[in-house]
C-alpha cells in the first residue's frame, strides 16, 4: 500500500535559529535526497529548502516509518541534535495535497501571495526529477500544482499590490506613468532607503538617474554602481524641472522642498505629473505640496500603509484562491483514485489530517 506523505519545518512552527541549521543548499541535494529517501523509506521524494521552510513530499509504503525518520534524517545529515519532532509537521493524503497546492500558490508564505516560492518549489521538483527521485505520483502531483498555482495567480489578486516600501513606491510610479522606460528619477540624499528604491526603479527601465547629495563624493560613489549622474546639491532644484520622480531621504531637520520652491518649477513643467517620494524622518518635503495639481507626494507612512493594506487585500483573496485550487485538487484526486483502482493497493489519497 502506498501513501502520499509530506512534512518538515516551516516558519510557523520552528524558529529561524533551527531552520538555518538545517537548510540545504542546491548543491547539497545530490547527497541529501538519497539519504532522505533511505531514512524515511520513500519511493519518490522531493526536498524543498527555502529561508522559511525545509520540507519534503514523498510516496511511501510505511507512513509511520516516514514520520519517525524525519528527525533521524536531519540529525544524521546535519549532525545537530534537537527535539525535531516538536518543531516538525507531518501530513498525509489529502492534507498533503492541499498544503502543496497552497504552498506553490503562495498562500502559505510569510508574505502571502509572494511568487518566489513557485520558482523555489519548481527548482526543488526539477532537481529531484533529474536525480530520478520522482515517479508517476509526484510528477503528476507537482505538475498539477504548478497549473493550479498559475491559475490562482492569474485569476485572483493574490499577488497584486506590493508589500515592501520600495516596491510600493515603484508600483505607484508605474500607476502614475505607465511604462517607466524613458522616465527620469532624481534622488536627494544618498541614504540606504533611497538607494533601495532607486535600484528597484532602475530595474524597471528608468532612463535617467540623478543623485544630489550634500557630500558630492557620496553621490558619485552611488552613481558608479547605478550608472547615473551625480549632481551638486545646489543644482537639484533646477534639475527637478525635467524629472518625473523625486525620491528624498536626507537627514535635513527642515523641509528642503517647499510649496514656494516647487510652484515656479511646476509652471515650467507644463502639466506633466510629478511623483514625490519622501522617505526621510523628519520629512524633507512640505506635505502641502500634495494638494497642488499634478503633484503626488507619498511619505514613508503612506507607503507603509499601502503595503499593509496590500497584504490585507491579499489575505482576503485566500478564500477565492482556495476555491480556485479545489477543481485542480479534485482532478488530481480522481486521477489518483483511478490509478489506485488499477494498481490495487495504493492508498495515496487516504484522508489523514495533519498529525
Amino acid at each position: 500500500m502506498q501513501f502520499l506523505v509530506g512534512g518538515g519545518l516551516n516558519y510557523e512552527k520552528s524558529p529561524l535559529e533551527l531552520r538555518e541549521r538545517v537548510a540545504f543548499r542546491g548543491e547539497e541535494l545530490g547527497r541529501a535526497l538519497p539519504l532522505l529517501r533511505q531514512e524515511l523509506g520513500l519511493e519518490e521524494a522531493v526536498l524543498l529548502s527555502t529561508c522559511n521552510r525545509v520540507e519534503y513530499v514523498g510516496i511511501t509504503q510505511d507512513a509511520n516509518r516516514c514520520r519517525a525518520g524525519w528527525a533521524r534524517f536531519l540529525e544524521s545529515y546535519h549532525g545537530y541534535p534537537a527535539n525535531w519532532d516538536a518543531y516538525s509537521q507531518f501530513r498525509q493524503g489529502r492534507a498533503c495535497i492541499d498544503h502543496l497546492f497552497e504552498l506553490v500558490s503562495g498562500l502559505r508564505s510569510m508574505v502571502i501571495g509572494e511568487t518566489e516560492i513557485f520558482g523555489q518549489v519548481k527548482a526543488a521538483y526539477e532537481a529531484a526529477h533529474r536525480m530520478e527521485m520522482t515517479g508517476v505520483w509526484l510528477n503528476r502531483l507537482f505538475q498539477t500544482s504548478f497549473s493550479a498555482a498559475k491559475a490562482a495567480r492569474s485569476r485572483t489578486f493574490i499577488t497584486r499590490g506590493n508589500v515592501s516600501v520600495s516596491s510600493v513606491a515603484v508600483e505607484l510610479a508605474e500607476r502614475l506613468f505607465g511604462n517607466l522606460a524613458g522616465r527620469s528619477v532624481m534622488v536627494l540624499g544618498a541614504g540606504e532607503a533611497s538607494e533601495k528604491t532607486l535600484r528597484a526603479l532602475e530595474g524597471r527601465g528608468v532612463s535617467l538617474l540623478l543623485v544630489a547629495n550634500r557630500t558630492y563624493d557620496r553621490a558619485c560613489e552611488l552613481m558608479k554602481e547605478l550608472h547615473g549622474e551625480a549632481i551638486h546639491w545646489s543644482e537639484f532644484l533646477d534639475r527637478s524641472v525635467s524629472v518625473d520622480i523625486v525620491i528624498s531621504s536626507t537627514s535635513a531637520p527642515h523641509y528642503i522642498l517647499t510649496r514656494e520652491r516647487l510652484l515656479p518649477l511646476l509652471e515650467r513643467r507644463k502639466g506633466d505629473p510629478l511623483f514625490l517620494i519622501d522617505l526621510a524622518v523628519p520629512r524633507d518635503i512640505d506635505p502641502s505640496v500634495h494638494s497642488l495639481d499634478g503633484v503626488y507626494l507619498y511619505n514613508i507612512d503612506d507607503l507603509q500603509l499601502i503595503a499593509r493594506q496590500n497584504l490585507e487585500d491579499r489575505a482576503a483573496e485566500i478564500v477565492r484562491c482556495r476555491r480556485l485550487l479545489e477543481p485542480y485538487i479534485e482532478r488530481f484526486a480522481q486521477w489518483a483514485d483511478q490509478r489506485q483502482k488499477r494498481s490495487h493497493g495504493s492508498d495515496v489519497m487516504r484522508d489523514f489530517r495533519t498529525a
Partner: protein
Amino acid sequence: MEERFWLGLAGLFAFLGALRGAYTLGSRAKEGSRMVDLFLLAALGSQSLFLYFRGKSIGHCPITNLLETVAFLGWALLLVYLFVGSAYRLSVLGFCTAPVVSLLDFAALIAPIDRAKPLPKMGWPLEVHGTLLLLAYGALGIGAIAGLLYLFEDKTLKSRRLAGWFYTFPALGDLLVVQRRLLNLGFVLLTVGLLAGVSLSIRGSWDWVKLFWSVGVWLLYLVLVCARSVFGWRQRRVAQGMVWGFLFVMLTFWLINNWSRAHQFRM
C-alpha cells in the same frame, strides 16, 4: 426595417459588452477585457452594416436625420475606441464606451427621430462636413471618457487610498497621453469639418444659430488644446474641460439643430 435590425443588433452587442465589462470590473477578473473588445468589434460590424444599408437606400451618406447621426456617432466612438484601446491596451475605456454606444443605439431606435429628410444637393463636401464632424466627436468622446478615468485616478492618488478599481484602471500617464492625442486629433477633424461647413455656407446661406454654436464649440476645444502651453493649465483642469465640453456638445446638439435652419432633422 432591415437596416434598423442591424442597429438594434449593434446596440445589443454593445449592451453585452457593457455587461461583460461591468462583470469584469465587479469580479475583478483579469481576462474579461478581450471578450468586451470582441463584443464591441461585433457592434462596430453591425453598426457599419446599418450605415451601409441606410446609405444605399437613401443614396447618400447616412447623416440625413437624427437617428442616422446618432448611429454614425456611435460608430465613430466604437471605431476610435477600437483603434486607441488596442494601441494603448486601455480596455477599461471599452468598458465605458460600450454602455454609451448601447444607450445611443437604443435611444435612437426608440425615439421617433427616424424621419426622412432629403439633403440639399451640395455634393461630396456636405458628406465630408458631416462625416468629419462626427468622427471628431467620436475622438473627443473617447477623449472625454479617458478624461473621466484620469480624474478618477487622480482623485484616488490624491486620497492615497489605493484600493478597488485603482489597480484595474490604466496608469495615469497612459490616460494622459491618450487624452492629449485624442484632443489634438478631434480638434483637427473638428476644424477641417467646420471649414467644409463654411465652404458650403458660402455657396448657400449662412445658418447663424449653428454657426455661433459651432464657433463656440471650436473655441472651447481650442482653449483645451492650448491650455497647457498658453494658459499653463494643469492636466486635471484639461480633463475636466474635456468631460464637460463633450457633455455640453451632446446635450445641446439636438436643441441647436432644432433651431438651426440648415441642420433641422425634420420633414
